[in-house]
């Protein structure tokens, strides 16, 4: 989440907790909440890399709050991040590996595997359907995230169907 | 059911145009049928036409002079009285021909009831009231004598059958004996009435003479009667009326009674040919209309297919679906039929021309009371059956509404089709054929529906050809001679005069005798015509012509009446002279219901040497016009020999029959059009699915249109081809059947020329193509715009 935090800081200085809240708010309730500890660790690393600069702020009756801001190097890093096309692997899939090898092991029935996986996907899909209707004014990203998830699930289910056709 | 009603209401509201079309169509069909039935009936009843035109009387009575005829006026159901006319029977003579004629007293104008229809000449003029007096008398007493004066012939009018028997025409002067005096009677005119015709040996013929003359005659001879005619409002029940009339006048005063039925039976005799044929045609036209209606309704129901499926899915039972269509269409058709009935009743007789007259005639016939509702019911039954069938098919539709149906039975292009396309056969031809052949059931049904009216048109043409043959080739029908010359008192002289006439190919002596066959109550006609040297050219259909003496041929009617067959011998008695003849053949015989035995004149003369020919049958040289020859012969013989045209009895029926045929062909043409519009709608709808496929394949819009038109034209070709051929067969069978039944004899049927038949087929195909063109263009344009989905 390094670049996410850097991008958020591009708007202006903020401290760790504010950043966590901003990101969660942008992505919506469907996305799991961020671990505040991890946020602080990432911020510390970013500061060590010189991409952000931190400053302590006095608080009455509380430990000091550290506010961060982007350095010029940090700006460049964000610009470069935004500009590069993201090209990581599209799908990360363990199930397919299982399916491909199940027959050899003789320890599991491929159709049974498919059915089980389908149930899992359907359950996820059900949850996505419940979330789909929620709309925040001015922020389409939570809904778009859910719709993206739905599309991916649909594709996974289609893939399962194809596998099942092949194996039947 | 409320639900069904709601849907039916909404459906009618949306398709108001279609509903109106159904009402109008059934009204049109009903009107056409009523008109054709009226024409048929009127044409088949020429006597009825005459009766209506002359305001005929239903009952004619001859009573003694003293009878009280005033009482007749007060009988209930009597709406009019003719007469009473004083009548005197005299034997009228014209040269060698004699006949008994009952002369009725008449005024200067014809009577209003039972009015004779003048056929030639005129009615009695006032000048002819001076009675003729023979030179011997001189008395001045009484109302019927005049002192002096040259004999002026009295004007009389003769009824047509009597005039023919006497060879009399207007201007001739006939004689009659009145005691020791000879009366001179000048024929002022010949008229037709709806009373029984004259036949020698039967009741006296009918004639009219000035009342003063008749009065004088009656006073002298003391042998007159009164002739009274009664018009009734209930023509069906004349027996009761006759009883009452006889009772009113006094049974001992009644000389004779005859009813309109006797007169009609006498006149009609052999009008079967006309009546039956046209009756069959009427039914056939109804059938053809039915077929077209079925198709139209079927299309409409099919257009509702989607809604029907939806309704079934909602819970309508199949019976409700079928019932709903049935009721809807019956109501609409019923409205049309009622409207047509009302219009015909109210306005029919006002239609100008033969149609209005036919309706007026029909109205007076008792058959109208059942024929009218029968026609209406028949139309409704036909439409109801068509709807029931269509509704039954709709009810069988699956309850699964399908959004866009791909046509079932889509097959890949067959090898033959692909080969044809590769060989550069025009693609529209190939694809058009394929579209038709892909749905054999539906195409066959559409072709069959088109075939029926075409078949009937072809049969009508066959009948027309038969009529033509009758008129233009009378020799083939046993009518060799076009003129006949009266032999008169000196047959030999007439024969010599005629023998030298240039236009005459042969003059054959002819005589017709009334003969009795054993076991028969009615007479048959024994005709002697031609000699061994100049035999008559009979139209033989069975056996052979007579070659030896004692051999004869006869018409079908005779064989049926005497229950004999070709090859048998029969014995006929004329007066006291027996004639034993060998029937060697059957010929076409148009007279006397075919009950005529024909043999050589010399054969008859062998048995009865006193026999003289009554006329000479003149066969003209080919190319000679009968009327020209008639005038020429009249001039050549100095007017001493009477020459008449031979009129074939059947020919009188031909003009009305031709009119009926024309009317029927017109109705059938309408039916063809209706059927075509139905099938075109179906063809277009089926092709709309394929339109985009055609465009994708690379057909230009013109080729697409050509495909649709070709498909329809191929259907029409099949239908017309089969229909025409079958129609010719049907007409031959029907005409021959009718010929045999009427006694004329089978073998009279003729087929239309191949040119005519080809023209019929070509016309049907051209019509199909033309009618399909516009809708096809429109469909192609809509598809091209991309708005082609149903």
């Amino acid at each position, binding site marked *: 989440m390094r670049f996410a935090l850097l991008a958020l800081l591009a708007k202006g200085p903020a401290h760790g907790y504010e950043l966590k809240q901003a990101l969660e708010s942008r992505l919506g309730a469907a996305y799991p909440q961020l671990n505040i500890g991890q946020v602080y660790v990432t911020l510390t690393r970013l500061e060590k890399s010189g991409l952000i600069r931190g400053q302590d702020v006095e608080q009455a009756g509380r430990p000091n709050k550290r506010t961060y801001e982007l350095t010029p190097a940090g700006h460049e890093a964000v610009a470069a991040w935004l500009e590069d096309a993201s090209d990581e692997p599209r799908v990360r899939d363990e199930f397919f590996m299982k399916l491909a090898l199940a027959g050899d092991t003789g320890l599991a029935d491929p159709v049974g595997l498919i059915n089980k996986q389908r149930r899992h996907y359907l359950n996820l*899909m059900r949850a996505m359907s419940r979330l789909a209707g929620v709309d925040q004014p001015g922020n389409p990203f939570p809904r778009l995230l859910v719709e993206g998830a*739905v599309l991916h699930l649909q594709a996974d289910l289609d893939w399962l169907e194809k596998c099942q056709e092949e194996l039947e | 059911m409320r639900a069904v009603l709601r849907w039916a209401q909404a459906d009618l509201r949306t398709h108001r145009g279609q509903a109106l079309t159904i009402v109008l169509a059934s009204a049109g069909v009903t009107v056409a049928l009523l008109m054709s039935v009226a024409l048929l009936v009127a044409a088949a009843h020429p006597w009825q036409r005459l009766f209506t035109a002359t305001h005929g009387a239903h009952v004619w009575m001859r009573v003694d002079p003293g009878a009280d005829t005033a009482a007749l006026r007060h009988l209930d159901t009597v709406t009019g009285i003719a007469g009473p006319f004083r009548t005197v029977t005299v034997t009228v003579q014209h040269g060698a021909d004699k006949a008994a004629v009952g002369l009725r007293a008449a005024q200067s104008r014809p009577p209003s009831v039972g009015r004779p229809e003048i056929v030639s000449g005129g009615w009695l003029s006032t000048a002819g009231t001076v009675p003729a007096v023979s030179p011997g008398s001189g008395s001045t007493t009484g109302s019927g004598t005049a002192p002096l004066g040259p004999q002026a012939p009295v004007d009389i009018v003769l009824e047509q059958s009597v005039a023919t028997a006497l060879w009399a025409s207007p201007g001739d002067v006939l004689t009659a004996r009145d005691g020791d005096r000879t009366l001179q009677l000048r024929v002022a005119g010949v008229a037709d009435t709806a009373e029984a015709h004259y036949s020698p040996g039967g009741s006296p013929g009918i004639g009219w003479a000035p009342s003063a003359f008749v009065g004088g005659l009656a006073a002298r001879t003391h042998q007159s009667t009164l002739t009274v005619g009664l018009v009734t409002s209930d023509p069906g029940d004349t027996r009761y009326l006759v009883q009452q009339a006889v009772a009113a006048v006094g049974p001992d005063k009644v000389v004779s009674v005859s009813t309109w039925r006797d007169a009609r039976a006498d006149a009609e005799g052999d009008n079967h040919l006309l009546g039956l044929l046209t009756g069959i045609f009427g039914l056939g036209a109804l059938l053809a209309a039915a077929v077209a209606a079925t198709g139209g309704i079927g299309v409409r129901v099919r257009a509702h297919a989607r809604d029907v499926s939806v309704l079934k899915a909602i819970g309508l039972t199949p019976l409700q679906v079928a019932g709903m269509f049935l009721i809807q269409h019956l109501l609409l058709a019923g409205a049309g039929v009622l409207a047509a009935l009302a219009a015909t009743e109210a306005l029919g007789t006002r239609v100008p021309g033969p149609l209005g007259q036919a309706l007026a005639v029909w109205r007076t016939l008792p058959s109208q009371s059942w024929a009218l509702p029968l026609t209406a019911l028949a139309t409704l039954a036909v439409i109801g059956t068509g709807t029931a069938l269509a509704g039954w098919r709709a009810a069988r539709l699956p309850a699964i509404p399908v959004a866009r149906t791909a046509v079932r039975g889509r097959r890949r292009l067959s090898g033959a089709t692909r080969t044809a396309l590769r060989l550069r056969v025009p693609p529209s031809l190939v694809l058009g054929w394929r579209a038709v052949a892909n749905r054999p059931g539906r195409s066959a049904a559409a072709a069959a529906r088109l075939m029926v009216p075409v078949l009937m048109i072809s049969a009508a043409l066959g009948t027309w050809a038969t009529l033509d043959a009758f008129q233009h080739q009378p020799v083939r029908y046993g009518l060799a001679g076009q003129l006949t010359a009266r032999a008169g008192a000196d047959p030999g002289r007439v024969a010599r005069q005629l023998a030298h006439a240039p236009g005459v190919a042969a003059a054959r002596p002819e005589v017709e005798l009334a003969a009795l066959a054993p076991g028969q109550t009615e007479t048959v006609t024994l005709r002697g015509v031609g000699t061994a040297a100049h035999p008559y050219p009979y139209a033989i259909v069975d056996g052979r012509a007579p070659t030896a003496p004692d051999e004869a041929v006869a018409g079908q009617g005779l064989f049926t009446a005497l229950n004999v067959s070709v090859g048998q011998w029969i014995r006929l008695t004329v007066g006291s002279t027996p004639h034993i003849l060998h029937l060697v053949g059957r010929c076409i015989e148009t007279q006397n219901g075919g009950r005529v035995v024909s043999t050589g004149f010399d054969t008859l003369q062998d048995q009865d040497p006193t026999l003289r020919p009554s006329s000479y049958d003149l066969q003209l040289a080919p190319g000679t016009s009968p009327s020209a020859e008639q005038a020429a012969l009249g001039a050549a013989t100095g007017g001493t020999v009477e020459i008449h045209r031979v009129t074939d009895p059947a020919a009188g029926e031909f003009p009305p029959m031709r009119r009926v045929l024309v009317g029927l062909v017109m109705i059938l043409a309408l039916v063809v059009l209706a059927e075509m519009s139905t099938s075109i709608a179906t063809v277009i709808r089926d092709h709309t699915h394929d339109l985009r496929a055609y465009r994708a394949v690379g057909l230009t819009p013109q080729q697409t249109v050509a495909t649709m038109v070709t498909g329809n034209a191929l259907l029409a070709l099949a239908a017309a081809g089969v229909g025409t051929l079958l129609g010719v067969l049907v007409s031959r069978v029907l005409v021959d059947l009718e010929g045999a039944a009427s006694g004329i004899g089978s073998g009279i049927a003729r087929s239309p020329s191949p040119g005519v038949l080809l023209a019929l087929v070509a016309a049907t195909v051209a019509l199909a193509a033309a009618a399909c063109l516009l809708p096809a263009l429109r469909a192609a344009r809509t598809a091209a715009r991309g708005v082609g989905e149903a």
Partner: protein
Amino acid sequence: MRRNGASGRDGQEAEPILLVADLVKTHRVDGSVVRAVRGVDLRVEPGEFVAVTGPSGAGKSTLLHLLGGLQRPDSGRIELDGRRVDQLGEARWAVLRRRRIGIVFQFFNLVSTLTVADNVELPGLLAGRSARQVRARREELLDELGLAGKEDSTPQDLSGGEQQRVALARALVNRPSLLLADEPTGSLDSKGTREVLGLLTRYHDQGQTIVLVTHDAGVASAADRVVSLFDGRVTDDVRFAEPPTLQGAAGAVVRLTG
């Protein structure tokens, strides 16, 4: 209140609305034989919302048509509300459909010549109820479905979603025991889909038994039980558990990096 089938609240086994045993249906198309449904068993309890999914050609639509009596099975039994119905004639099925079954189709299938009001009231009138009763019920339904004011429109004037809502009203006018839906969202855009699914869920919450056929997993997941049909046979039958929490569920599907 959602009833969960066999585990009835009062512990008694409620009688199933639909009981299907060994159903077989074969189509004959163009000379080739297609075995659409090959021995399907199914049991639907009152109040269940069942989705039948599978690839196209798996026999889903055929199964639904058999359940609704639109087609006749070749063999097997179907019991509706405890009464055996698979051998009924077309006329009896039509009567049954009026009162007990409501059907919604992919292509809406409204009668084009009738107004919205007439379309909805038609099954009610067929069932023999009085015109007044049916009108009241129609007004109630159109209100619930957000179609108030469209009584006199014809189907052509409405959008896809609106038409499907009218179809839904028509299916529900007689309070049927069973609501069958054949790809009800197949012809709708995402907004229409959401509307219709939301309505189905609402009626399900009120206790309506629904059997839905779809190839769209998103639509199927609106149900609480999914039956997978593959090649004419049932391969899986899963009842959904209540999701513990929706919070962060997308994270199980998508992991955002960066």
